[in-house]
């Protein structure tokens, strides 16, 4: 095992092990949830032991096509998700955020990026062999990739993804991907296995279809999926795209949901409020949010920017082009792409078809782009008579909002929904 001071990866591994031991002993825990934690444990154990096993670590930012890294047999490290997981499993990130701040990063900068920089700087997560990043969807990543290269003294590659999606722009991005593969081959000494990439793309396509089918099941009243279960769907795509265990997880989850629907069993004992979730809840409050959701009968039934995939299929016979295509289909692309009728129309469609009572917008202060959309989304949802609660917060920085504050606002909002 790699020795690191204040090793966050080891902390995540231990937390996953403890949770797994607890839920495996609980007959009421769904099988898919056990599978999910086994996958997380596997991901972080592999990352923890990568150095010792002589494996090549590729750090990559959110929305980066991890399919490429996995097809080359390299070890991926999803940087933002790793910061989230640190917050989720250890309860706090103050040390790595402070380390980020001490490097001069302002508190207004996206906390997962601030935390990631701090974690690399103080040795809390292993330094990668290479850093790859992109302007795909999130603008923050465009600069923080350079910073990671600087902190970790490693080479890097910036994947330029065009804003629009004409054939010309898609062809440009495919060339970018080919250049990136050449870069990774040179740095790692490993060749891209295109057959393997095709298999991964094929399974990614299956994953997307399964997620769509799962979302269809979530339309049911009462909804069969847990109040904040969408975070599992999100993580599955972020960390395990096109992996056999992802498909198995989604198929198991789907069967469990079908069974729950047949048994008329909802995810919460008394479903009162069907919610739409906009953006990411604070990770350090997840246990509290789960409790208050169950107690109040509130359940997230749809997330237009996380689980509601855009139209299209992936052609495994042209894997590079398929990876490009996926980048325009990912749900988050709606939020960061042109905010035209396709984005706003999707929100309305979700509100209507999933019979949403209210929406909760987790306004992460460090994400300027998403915060800039609050009014627009609020007005859009007002057209379909869906009230929106805006909760100022941060996904990992606990100094922005407290549990009491979130509790008070959520209770106020539930009272509003009940009183209407």
């Amino acid at each position: 095992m790699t020795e690191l001071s204040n090793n966050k990866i080891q902390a995540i591994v231990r937390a996953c092990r403890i949770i797994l031991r607890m839920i495996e002993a609980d007959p009421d825990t769904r099988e898919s949830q056990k599978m999910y934690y086994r996958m997380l444990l596997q991901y972080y154990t592999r990352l923890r032991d990568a150095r010792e096993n002589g494996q090549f670590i590729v750090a990559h930012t959110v929305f980066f096509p991890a399919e490429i890294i996995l097809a080359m047999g390299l070890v991926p490290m999803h940087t933002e998700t790793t910061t989230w997981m640190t917050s989720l499993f250890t309860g706090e990130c103050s040390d790595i955020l402070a380390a980020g701040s001490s490097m001069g990063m302002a508190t207004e900068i996206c906390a997962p990026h601030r935390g990631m920089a701090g974690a690399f700087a103080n040795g809390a997560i292993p330094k990668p062999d290479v850093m790859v990043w992109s302007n795909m969807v999130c603008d923050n990543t465009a600069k923080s990739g350079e910073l990671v290269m600087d902190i970790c003294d490693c080479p890097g590659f910036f994947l330029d993804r065009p804003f629009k999606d004409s054939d010309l722009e898609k062809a440009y991005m495919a060339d970018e991907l080919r250049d990136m593969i050449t870069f990774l081959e040179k740095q790692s000494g490993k060749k891209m296995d295109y057959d393997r990439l095709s298999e991964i793309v094929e399974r990614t396509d299956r994953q997307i279809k399964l997620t769509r089918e799962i979302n269809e099941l979530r339309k049911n009243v009462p909804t069969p999926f847990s109040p904040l279960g969408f975070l599992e769907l999100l993580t599955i795509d972020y960390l395990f795209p096109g992996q056999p265990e992802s498909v198995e997880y989604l198929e198991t989850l789907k069967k469990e949901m079908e069974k729950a629907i047949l048994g008329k069993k909802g995810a919460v004992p008394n479903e009162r409020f069907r919610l739409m979730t906009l953006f990411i809840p604070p990770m350090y409050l997840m246990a509290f949010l789960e409790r208050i959701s169950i107690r109040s009968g509130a359940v997230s039934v749809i997330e237009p920017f996380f689980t509601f995939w855009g139209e299209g299929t992936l052609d495994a016979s042209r894997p590079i082009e398929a990876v490009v295509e996926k980048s325009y289909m990912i749900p988050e692309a709606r939020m960061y792409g042109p905010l035209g009728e396709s984005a706003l129309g999707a929100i309305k469609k979700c509100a209507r078809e999933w019979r949403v009572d209210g929406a909760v917008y987790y306004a992460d202060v460090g994400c300027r782009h998403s915060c800039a959309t609050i009014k627009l989304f609020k007005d859009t949802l007002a057209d379909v008579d869906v009230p929106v609660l805006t909760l100022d917060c941060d996904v990992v920085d606990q100094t922005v909002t407290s549990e009491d504050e979130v509790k008070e606002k959520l209770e106020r909002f539930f009272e509003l929904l009940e009183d209407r």
Partner: protein
Amino acid sequence: MLAIGIDIGSLTTKAVVMNDGQLLASEVSNTLDEADASASVAMTKALEKAGADDNPEKYVITTGNGGKEVSFADGSKAITTCLARGIYWYAPDTRAVIDIGAESSSVVKINNRGRVIDWANHDKCASGTGLFLQQMAKLMKLSFEEMSELSRRAEKGAEITGTCAVFAESEVISHVHRVPPTPLPEIILGIYLSVSTRIKTMCKRIGAGECLAVSGGVALHAGLVETLEKELKQRIYVPQNPVCVAAMGAAVLAGEEIKKELQQ
């Protein structure tokens, strides 16, 4: 059975006693360390004013800071719900209430049944709150009435930030000490404008555009209400007892619960 509403604010606790939809009495007393004690003192005084028996049959709804901790309450409601019901009791035509309390300010948009549609609040900084205005009055050695009176003499307001109470205070000190000093009426109007700008932004954010009312202790600041009216380009309704609007709403809700119990 008496319907009692109690609103525990950061500085004062308000209690309202109603019977069958009619207001019997209200009381404003200082908030104490314990929520129970604050609520008990205000309620006892309000019951005395109402001429009630020593231990009357009652239904108590609480709201505000620590409202849920009141051990003798029958229920607790969100401040937004109470403000909506309270202002609806005073003026059913109201479609949004601007509440400026000691430590926070908010705008609550309501429908034609007195139900909350949306709200916006500002609770991260003292700017735009009663404590901020109190601090400014102290700094200029003026009463609220004197501030209101002086503000009417100003032709324009001094530039004062609305985003931070500490910066605003520094700016006011700078206006007072510059040579020549900025005339007091202009400073006061500037303070009112900084508060009004913040309120206006909240109104815009939730689409609260017409039939506005104001509640909270700051509603007694006539000069501020006049500035708000100019900024929002409309008359703003000030209820007879603006400080007790949320407590009134809590009492209305208590009355609704009594009715439900009677029907069962």
